[in-house]
């Protein structure tokens, strides 16, 4: 009887481990090998998609983080694009429902004054993230805090951004 109980417990533990593996680590995998990242051309209007090969991590959170970092880095050097200020990084990317929350570093504030650049930068970021399935909105935080706009800025950031904002 004792042995049977031990076997049952072991079987249960194995089942839990398998469940965790399936539900926590595997379920959010992405099937494709590439994602589409957008940048905004210097005309401020044209969004240009380009394909970026994914690394081996395909879980949803990793892919969203990867897409964000690629959008922040922008296209290869030499391509004239509206770019986030140098040094702008993603501190974190979290997904809840259809909204991705992107926490950017303070470096994003280092280019004050231009509504033009703000618009192009965030348009590219929003298009990139909402290209991932299941994500339709992007909430922007700066250094962990929700701000209504960038300091001295124009574009409203206190509500999640969507493609329909433009």
């Amino acid at each position, binding site marked *: 009887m004792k042995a049977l109980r031990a076997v049952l417990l072991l079987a249960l533990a194995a089942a*839990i*481990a398998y*469940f*965790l*593996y399936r539900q*926590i*680590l*595997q379920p*959010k*995998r*992405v*099937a*494709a090998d*590439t*994602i*589409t990242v957008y940048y905004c051309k*210097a*005309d*401020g209007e044209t969004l240009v998609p380009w394909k970026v090969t994914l*690394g*081996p*991590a395909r*879980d949803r959170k*990793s*892919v*969203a*983080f*990867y897409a964000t*970092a*690629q959008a*922040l*880095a922008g296209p290869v*050097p030499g391509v004239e694009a*509206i*770019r986030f200020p*140098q*040094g702008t*990084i*993603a*501190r974190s990317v979290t*997904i809840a429902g259809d909204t991705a929350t992107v926490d950017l*570093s303070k470096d994003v504030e280092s*280019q*004050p*004054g*231009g*509504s*033009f*650049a703000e618009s192009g930068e965030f348009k590219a970021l929003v298009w990139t993230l909402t290209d991932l*399935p299941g994500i339709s909105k992007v909430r922007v935080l700066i250094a962990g805090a929700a701000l*209504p*706009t*960038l*300091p*001295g*800025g*124009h*574009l409203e950031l*206190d509500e999640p951004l969507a493609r329909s904002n*433009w």
Partner: protein
Amino acid sequence: MGILSWTNRWPARTGKLLGAFALGLVLLPALGFGWARPAAAQAAAKSFWFVGTNLIFAKAQNRGGETAVASDDPGLGRFLGKLGASLSYDPGQRYVIVTSGDRRTIVFTLGDARYTVAGVTQSAPFAPYQSGGSAYLSLTALAKALYVLPVEQGGATILQPQIGDLDVRTQNSVTTVTLRSALPVKFQRVSAAGDERLVVSLNAVGTSLEPQREVSGSAALHALSLQPGGSARNPTTTVAFEVSPGTAHALGASRSQNELVLAFSNKVALSGQPVPANGDYGSGGAAVAVRAPGDLSPSAPTNEYAPLPADVPGHEALPPPPLQAAAHVTSVDALPAGDALDVRVAVSGPVAYEWHRLSDNRWYVDLRNAVLDTPARDDQPRSTAVLSLRVKQISADADPVVRIALTLASPRHVDVEPAAGGFTVAVGENDDGEAQRVGAGRIASGAVIANALPIAPVTGSAGGPSDFWSKPTPAPPAPIARLAPGTNPRLIVIDPGHGGSDFGAEHNGLIEKDLTLDISKRLRTLLVARGWQVKMTRETDVDVFAPNDSAHDELQARCDVANQAGARMFVSVHINSFTSASLNGTTTYYYKGADLALGEAIHRHLAANLKTIDRGVRKENFYVIHHTDMPAVLVETAFLSNPSDAAYLRSPAFLQQVALSIADGIGEYASNSPQVNVSPSDGL
């Protein structure tokens, strides 16, 4: 969409799994997941010599003889910062992404020894792993991707910046050589200016590239050599270019400050400037804004246009009267400025004020709930503009009031302007034409509504000298929080973008906040002349809410001005800028559906009248047009970062043309809008 599909949906009941997830985290190492901290890693702080400093990686670990650096190690932050690079990592996921100074992306994945540099796969000595919330990477792999080579010397390790890449290509008889460096390029030309053979020496970078390279397919350049020099700590690299007779060389266009581009040809003329004796790409980028206040005073009166007359009363500078303690007037100073006079009033806190212009050249302002802490005065300031200045506590009981009164030598424009620690009563130029009309106004701080309602004219002489100091009329009622848009169908609110501590954009010696105010004042003059009531969110170089306030307070304060007054329209005036000087043109932004017709009308006139590029009417979620209740637009007049637009912006004629176009657009919109029941000039 549709490029990807998650093979499984994220379970909806995430919360229920959190406990299991915590358990899972405990189990992960046991399950053998590769990116958890390997047992072999040992903490071992390391220090390296790097560009003149000793760099300490306090959180470094030893991973089989290789140095593993933590993503959040302050030493790594300094290393990346010096190289203009940045690192993104979030412990909840598996990518570590580094962006180099020249915007190449370097992607590491926890648990995978392969990494990519600008999409090209490389192999690291070990797979990155996670430990204590940090990602650990191979320093060698990361440094190599950033063109930095660890060099051992006398027991110390030097992280030596390198020329990491060299590219030669020939097109249309021009051979272009691109050298990519870990640091912003600094070089000296070693060869003489007229020499055909070019030799340049690059500072602070070594090289491990092939020392000799034959160039094929180029008539101009047949070989080049790279010669490392200096010491391990202070390296240099000398690059010599062997050219055919008759070859000219020039600087090419580099894509980042980490690149040196040189062009050679013996067949065609080169467009770039000859290679200078020395170059320093890191010392001053083209996009660095230089503030040069002396270069320009856009708000100074110009001869080209008449001085800007006052608007209809619509002047509010301080917050509504406080319910708490009275404010203290601590000093009143008369500061003559040529023919004009500034009366500086220092106040300890917010105060409501109300000014009156009487028809006999007397002007006074009452400060409500204010106590005079400086002696009362009655004297003649050293100014030809003012015959007397009187300051007195005219009521001291429950409703203390301080009155500051001026007797003007002639009809003059008097403005109350907020200033640091109080406000300034500015007595300006002669103002014959406007005196009577403006004199009919009465303003009270916070009581915006009073400005927008029809104005009761002050009777010819509002009492003689005897009752001049009598107790003032009761304070106006508290402001109404918000009126329905269009409650005041003749009122237009103009919002001069930025101001005070917020300079807006700065380029080419131009400052956005000054230009927006200049255009707005011109627009106000035009609209007033056409019978509109105008209220400006600011009339001087100030923050609308408070200096160094949050963007939200500042922008909401601008919206509040229009919303509280029930204005018919809201126009925000801005000047654009961009990091690239090539961008130019005029854009009108709208957000709400109700904004579009106004935006189109204004833009039609801007596009027709201005010589700038027409960038069209565009939708954008800009705060001030979103949070205003009435039709609202934001005009980005031109790019001050663009030389030709900047030249326009220096011209008063252009600024006047902008104001005129906006005024014409407002007029067109008003005459087309079905909501207009009141002609703008009714009642004025």
